[in-house]
């Protein structure tokens, strides 16, 4: 018997779990598996805005009172980000950035992507810092390994140069290792924690810096798993230039680091994470959710708690699923999904500026994140819905995927 069961082990679920565990509750996080944390960049987006993202969400809250940010409220957003930063800093993996101004960080194709907070290992890639660099005699270098698939220094460097951030590209030789094939991002991250490997890479970088007089080097985000901060500092010391990580395609090492930071924080506060346990149905009535059932080896496993927090994500995370008939389902508890009629899901223009109506689908909630039906009546008093499962936000277009997860997870965690 738990005080709270959180369904979903992404940012929102873990934030909620941590906050409830800090109140002394017995908390279980049940999840199908690792999720979107391991696919995403490992940065935390608050809102895609050229000016202050915090001001933008304040305005959003007045214009769209049903938006999850409006429900969480500005105070919770600020407190949630402060909490997240403290957790990461305590784990020796600090986040850098500001709620008032987005960073602009190079992506794996060399586009500059706005984000609010990034791990300190990425921050030297900020567009404003790069701008100060370009045109000077000390340009920027993007380097990678041929053995790492889907990371092309040349592509990134050319795209950055085309945007006015002069950059050169180089491939590094793979240091001698016991491995001969299968160099995934995770395997590289483990190798970078080895002294000898770093020494070899450091020497190559040093030579490049000497020959090309580079002051900044962008490398794929594979610089260590548990000790990224130290790995980065060590490489910088060896080569004499600033280094920044550029997010890769999945599996995302920075994403898995932030998962680890939060999962560790949750567990040291007495919480328990049970993966491989997809919640498939629920039982309840009279406004109370009583039991949930997760998939197990030979039969269902029944779980019971006073309070439940649904943090299973949207379509990408598996919390919402569309069937062929054009109905969206909430997959864990069977809650009604707030969504336009099937015929109104999409705008005729594929790349529509304001997105497609279906993107705003999700579970509708009241001011305390309790799920409501189409009439606005609360379905379960002891359930809170957080993160991408929530209706009335288009997180990708608004650039608020992680921020929304962190803020709503936090807000439900302190209810």
């Amino acid at each position, binding site marked *: 018997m738990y005080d709270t069961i959180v369904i979903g082990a992404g940012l929102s679920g873990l934030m909620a779990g941590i906050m409830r565990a800090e109140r002394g509750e017995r908390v279980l996080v049940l999840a*199908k*598996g*690792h999720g979107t944390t391991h696919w995403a960049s490992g940065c935390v987006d608050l809102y895609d805005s050229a000016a202050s993202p915090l001001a933008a969400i304040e305005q959003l809250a007045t214009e769209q009172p049903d938006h999850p940010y409006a429900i969480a409220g500005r105070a919770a957003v600020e407190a949630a980000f402060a909490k997240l930063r403290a957790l990461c800093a305590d784990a020796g993996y600090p986040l850098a950035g500001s709620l008032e101004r987005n960073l602009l960080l190079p992506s794996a194709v060399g586009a500059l992507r706005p984000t609010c907070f990034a791990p300190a290992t990425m921050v030297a890639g900020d567009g404003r810092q790069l701008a100060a660099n370009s045109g000077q005699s000390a340009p920027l270098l993007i380097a990678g390994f041929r053995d790492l698939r889907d990371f092309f220094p040349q592509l990134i460097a050319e795209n950055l140069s085309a945007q006015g951030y002069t950059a050169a590209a180089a491939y590094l030789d793979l240091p001698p290792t016991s491995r001969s094939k*299968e160099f*995934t991002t995770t*395997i590289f991250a483990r190798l970078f924690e080895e002294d000898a490997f770093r020494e070899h890479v450091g020497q190559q970088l040093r030579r490049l810096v000497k020959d090309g007089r580079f002051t900044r080097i962008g490398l794929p985000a594979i610089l260590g798993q548990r000790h990224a901060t130290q790995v980065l500092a060590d490489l910088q010391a060896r080569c004499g230039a600033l280094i920044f990580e550029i997010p890769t395609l999945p*599996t995302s090492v920075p994403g898995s680091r932030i998962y680890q930071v939060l999962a560790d924080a949750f567990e040291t506060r007495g919480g328990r994470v049970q993966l*491989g346990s997809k919640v498939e149905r629920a039982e309840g009535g009279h406004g109370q959710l009583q039991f949930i059932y997760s998939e197990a080896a030979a039969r269902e496993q029944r779980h019971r708690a006073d309070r439940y927090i649904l943090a299973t994500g949207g379509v990408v995370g598996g919390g919402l699923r569309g069937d062929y008939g054009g109905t969206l389902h909430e997959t864990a508890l069977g809650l009604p999904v707030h969504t336009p009629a099937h015929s109104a899901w999409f705008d005729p223009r594929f790349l529509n500026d304001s997105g497609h109506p279906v993107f705003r689908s999700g579970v509708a909630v009241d001011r305390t994140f309790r799920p409501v039906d189409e009439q606005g009546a609360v379905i379960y008093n002891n359930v809170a819905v957080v993160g991408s499962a929530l209706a009335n936000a288009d997180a990708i277009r608004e650039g608020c995927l992680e921020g929304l997860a962190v803020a709503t997870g936090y807000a439900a965690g302190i209810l």
Partner: protein
Amino acid sequence: MDHIELSLVQSLDHCIKCNICTSACPVAAVTDKFPGPKYVGPQAQRFRMDSQPTPDDSVDYCSGCRVCNQVCPTGVRIAELNARARAQIVKERGVPVRNRLLGYSWLAGAAGSGPQAPLANFAMQNPLLRQIGERVFGVARKGPFPSFSRYTFRSWFKKHHKARTNTRRQVVYFHGCSTNYYEPRIGKVTVAVLERNGFDVILAKQGCCGLPLLSMVLSTMQNATTTIT
């Protein structure tokens, strides 16, 4: 194909190629003879046809630990796909002696633990014997073996004076082979904790749980053993 079989095969279509499973797999972490769950599971499965020989051998390195299943965000039944693929290899080529040796680890445990343990441990650690073992049976020379215990957990339990609990709360303890033959101290502390909390500990008659057999793809024999257990 029954619905379970069907759900396994269909689950491979859920794979989004994120490689989360590969990142978590303990075998892929230590050897690249094993390309990882994504490759040997949902990817290779597309090339496994009933009427054709098995397309890749590396799946045999899968230990069946199921970590990949736990972390997969889309619910692909990787470990089960692997287990069936390995069974297919065995069907085509028979069971190697190595698998028979390692699969019946409880027999080895029963033979090695007890007063003769020092001798057995000496043999298991003897480089010459291990080299022969590698040549003849294919058991890696450097693979560490647990050491046999001088006494078994069950023999200790028989002599152990149960704490007087006056309770009707009972626990049936399935300790497993490892606790019985190699690490009885695990069982001893388990009993201590349970008794301290007022439980009456009962040891049921038990055999091998079948996991080593499953790992070694001796699944038909496993059925027999599971019945014993």
